[in-house]
């Protein structure tokens, strides 16, 4: 044993403690009232594994039984039949006639023409909505 280890041991032994009679009596009294329990620490938990499995399997079996009872007790629901909505609630069909723009005049004039066409289109759409009452 080296010097440091020897010193550490000596110094540990020089710590003066004593289990007093009062403490001894306290411990004995406490021990008398203690009820021993089985298996708590992980080191001794192997004996608890079957209980774990048993409780898990019981839970699963109970769940399956409840689900089966609920589902077997009720007849299958009728398939839902949906009616098509009335014609008046469907959206109108628009027919678009796209045309390629052919730039034959200056850009400003073309822009004016396009804006004018847009306004006309908007008006046509408004008229169509008015006709169907939306």
């Amino acid at each position, binding site marked *: 044993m080296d010097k440091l280890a020897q010193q550490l041991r000596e110094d540990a032994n020089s710590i003066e403690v004593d289990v007093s009679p009062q403490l001894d009596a306290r*411990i004995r009294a406490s021990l008398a009232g203690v009820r021993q329990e089985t298996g708590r620490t992980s080191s001794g938990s192997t004996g608890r594994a079957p209980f774990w499995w048993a409780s898990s399997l019981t839970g699963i079996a109970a769940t399956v039984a409840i689900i089966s009872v609920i589902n077997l007790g009720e007849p299958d629901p009728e398939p839902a039949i949906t009616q098509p909505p009335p014609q008046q609630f469907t959206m109108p069909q628009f027919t678009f006639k796209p045309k390629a723009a052919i730039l034959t005049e200056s850009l400003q004039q073309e822009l004016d023409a396009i804006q004018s066409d847009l306004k006309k289109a908007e008006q046509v759409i408004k008229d169509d909505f008015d006709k169907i009452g939306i």
Partner: protein
Amino acid sequence: MAVNSETALIAAAKCGSVAAFTELVASHRVRLLRFLVTRTSSYADAEDALQDTLINAFRYLRSYDAKWRFSTWLYRIAINNAASMRVQDTEQIGELCDEESGPLEQCIAVSERENLWISAKRVLNDEVYTAMWLRYAEDMSVTDIAAALGRSVSWTKVNLLRARQQLDAAMGGSKKKAQASEAYG
């Protein structure tokens, strides 16, 4: 305590015999209390921790696995109790008592040189301190210390080595201080 005798006492205590348990732990009580004095903030706390340790040991004795040494198992409970007591103390008073007036200092007779365990308390953290205590005060094997602390053997080896180096360095520092103070009168 002979192994056979210890085994018989454990068996009897597992059946609920308080007398057998008391005899079983008789040789460990003072050593446990000495250890707990170094780990708690007052002597009364150390006594409470000893009481809790023995009660818990008896309560859960049936879960004791014989692959552990009984003393290792007992120390593991004591370490947990001391740790929870320190947490309670910290929560109650904010910080632990002044180390100069702790129970360890009160239990050491005045001597010329400082007790190494006081130096160790200053320079080592709780877990490493405990490892050192189990190694050098309790003469436990590294494997048992690792089991008691819930650490790996390699962690224990490395930290014991580092702790020794730290303690050596601290002792060197205090020797230099002592020499310096002697030199300056």
